[in-house]
């Protein structure tokens, strides 16, 4: 008898003829995320995935923690795999129930049986009621509640018998890589990591671009973005991050363009650079953390002017969210504490006192046309610092 991990997925069921593609992507991702923990066999049977360690000392808990961050997985359970024999099943069920009672103050339970192997002499209902009686006898303080039990002892009789009592929810979504790649403009604030996470959740592989204005900002601002990327990278199975030196561009805008248009012109530069990097790396879209009306550069007028700078689609999953909703997700993915570190990613020197909230597209284009846009962009991209964040 050994402990294995049962992995369930949901949305992939609906994929019709493409289902095998999603399933094999998910299995590939599972192998990748568990890499380094020890040898395992990952197999698929009846729309479930089983992770079976080759070694008895395999770190099951660490593996489960990692699997709860893999998109495409609905839930995981640590499962005892044993030979199909009535006495063995009872013995193990008692042991597992006693174990779960040491960790939780549960009072009621029920037994659920699935019998795929019809050669087993007891029917599902019969085994459930008999096992229930055995458990009640072994642990007298427990009671049965078939409607709202505190926990469920699940027994599945297939080629072997599987018993489990826990079902740990994972992040759901679709396996990363099953939906291509997109480029995230990551700032170091709360919104952009959340935006990236939400798109990644739909199976998209992320690549990050950060604009860095040293020495107008601190090196700590860069470190912070690397830390945030590391958090996203756990969900994304590794992530490439481009650090683009942005000081020269900001200085040029600051010197030659009207104050109130600084931010919007800066945003257009960011989008243009991100698009070049995206196209070079096979990305099919850009992702930003913008939400309508949050700041001057996120009004509908401003977004129109920003979008006009690029032809790739721009995805903004936070667009209709309030700050508190974004914060909630940020906490859930454990990015919040890092996001609120006080290192600014953009110096106040480059922020106008009263930035325009309703920029005019033609005016913006006219204002920025005094700059040598192509040279500035090329220069920034030539000095791109690329790192692979695992």
């Amino acid at each position, binding site marked *: 008898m050994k402990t294995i991990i049962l992995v369930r997925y949901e949305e992939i069921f609906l994929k019709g003829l493409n289902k095998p593609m999603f399933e094999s992507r998910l299995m590939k991702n599972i192998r990748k995320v568990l890499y380094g923990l020890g040898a395992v066999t990952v197999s698929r049977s009846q729309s479930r995935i089983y992770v079976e360690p080759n070694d008895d000392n395999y770190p099951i808990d660490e593996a489960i923690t990692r699997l709860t961050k893999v998109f495409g997985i609905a839930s995981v359970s640590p499962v005892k795999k044993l030979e199909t024999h009535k006495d063995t099943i009872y013995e193990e069920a008692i042991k597992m129930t006693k174990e779960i009672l040491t960790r939780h103050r549960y009072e009621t339970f029920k037994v659920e049986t699935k019998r795929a192997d019809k050669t087993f002499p007891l029917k599902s209902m019969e085994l459930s009621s008999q096992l229930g009686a055995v458990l009640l006898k072994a642990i007298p303080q427990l009671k049965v509640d078939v409607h709202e039990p505190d926990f469920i002892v699940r027994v599945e009789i297939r080629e072997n018998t599987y018993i489990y009592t826990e079902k740990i929810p994972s992040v759901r979504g679709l396996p990363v890589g099953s939906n291509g790649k997109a480029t995230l403009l990551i700032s170091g604030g709360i919104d952009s990591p959340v935006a990236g996470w939400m798109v990644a959740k739909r199976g998209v592989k992320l690549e990050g671009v950060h604009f860095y204005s*040293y*020495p*107008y*900002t*601190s090196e700590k601002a860069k470190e912070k973005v690397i830390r945030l990327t590391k958090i996203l990278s756990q969900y994304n199975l590794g992530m490439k991050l481009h650090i683009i030196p942005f000081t020269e561009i900001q200085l040029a805008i600051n010197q030659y363009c009207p104050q109130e248009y600084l931010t919007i012109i800066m945003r257009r530069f960011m989008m243009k650079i991100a698009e070049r990097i995206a196209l070079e790396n096979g990305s099919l879209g850009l992702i930003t953390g913008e939400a309508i009306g949050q700041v001057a550069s996120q009004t509908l007028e401003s977004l129109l002017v920003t979008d006009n700078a690029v032809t790739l689609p721009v995805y903004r999953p936070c667009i209709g969210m309030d700050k508190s909703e974004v914060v909630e997700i940020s906490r859930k993915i454990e990015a919040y504490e890092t996001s609120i570190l*006080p290192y*600014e990613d953009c*110096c*106040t*020197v480059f*922020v106008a006192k009263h930035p325009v909230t309703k920029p005019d597209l033609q005016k913006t284009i006219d204002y920025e046309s005094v700059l040598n846009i192509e040279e500035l962009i090329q220069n920034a991209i030539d000095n791109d610092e690329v790192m692979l964040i695992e």
Partner: protein
Amino acid sequence: MPDIIYFDNSATTCVYPEVISAVNEAYSRFYGNPSSLHRLGNEADIILQQSRQIIAKTLSTSDDCIYFTSSGTESNNWAIKGVCRANKRRGSKIVTTKIEHPSVLECFKYLETEGFSPVYLDVEPNGQVSSELVRETIDNHTILFSFILVNNETGAIQKAEDIIREVRFINPNTIIHIDAVQAYGKIPINLLRLDADLLTISSHKIHGPRGCGALYIKKNTRIVPILHGGGQEKKYRSGTENVPGIYGFAKAAVKTNSAMQENRKKYKALRDIIIKGLSESFSDKFYVNSPSDGYEGILNIAFPRVKAQVLMHHLETKNIFVSTGSACSSRRNVQSHVLTAMNLPKENIEGAIRLSFSGMNNEEQAYEFIDAIKEIIPIIKY
């Protein structure tokens, strides 16, 4: 590695090489626990007591008044909270200044929640507390007066003897604590003449290792411990003694204190070179926020229409390291509370950087700093 110009010695200092070897030696030879009754314990205890005597001597006091702690912050916390808890029934008024280090200010703020009534004294434009204000503030219910001897941001020195005389005259029971973290090893401190009850010092500001501080406690001072446990330091400060660190602290204390006079002369020269150099060859305005009669080793200067943090990072690219009190942020109003308390104009605060010297700096570095400023300021002025 390129040559580094380190003008941030009030933040921390590099440890003297001989101190590093002393600490190393202590770690490999005297690793016993001073509380152990065997020979190794005893050897460690001897090193500890020798170090205590050395530190005591640098303050002209006796070694049984020196208690080792983990930091200046711990010493300040202990002094303030320990006195308040021991003297609750004598009164609730506790007094300090508006230019203290956060480890003092935050303790006062916290003690307000325990029912004490803190008073924060204003300072004159030169950063000093006036004797009149002290006289008006101290009363019969004042249990503690705590002040910083050399201010960490400007170098302003308090007239400690005058202040103490005023306090003693009005209420001889008021316990006086001096935060001397930036003063120790920098200006003479003679506890035979300076009638303080408690005095905080720290190791890493004088080229000693981090994680070491001390609190001087005059005999019969009413104070209770804040760390309880194994009863080390005569039951006043529990926790296994950091013998190697303390050994290094003592070594650093001797060297720094004996170089004091020479260093002060040197700092005065550096300071004059920078102020003179900037006034003569630099066309723009600049402000000197440090008082002229302050400690020579700290020079706080500001440039109009410059964000301090931007200047700091630009100097960093030239391998010149300074510090800034105000952060470059629009979201939070982070302005130096010390400069604000000195009533300086906004421009003096926003563009303020602090240079703090050590014996390892030289005049050539001061000239390099001037050249760097002349190059950077025109670029970053907004």
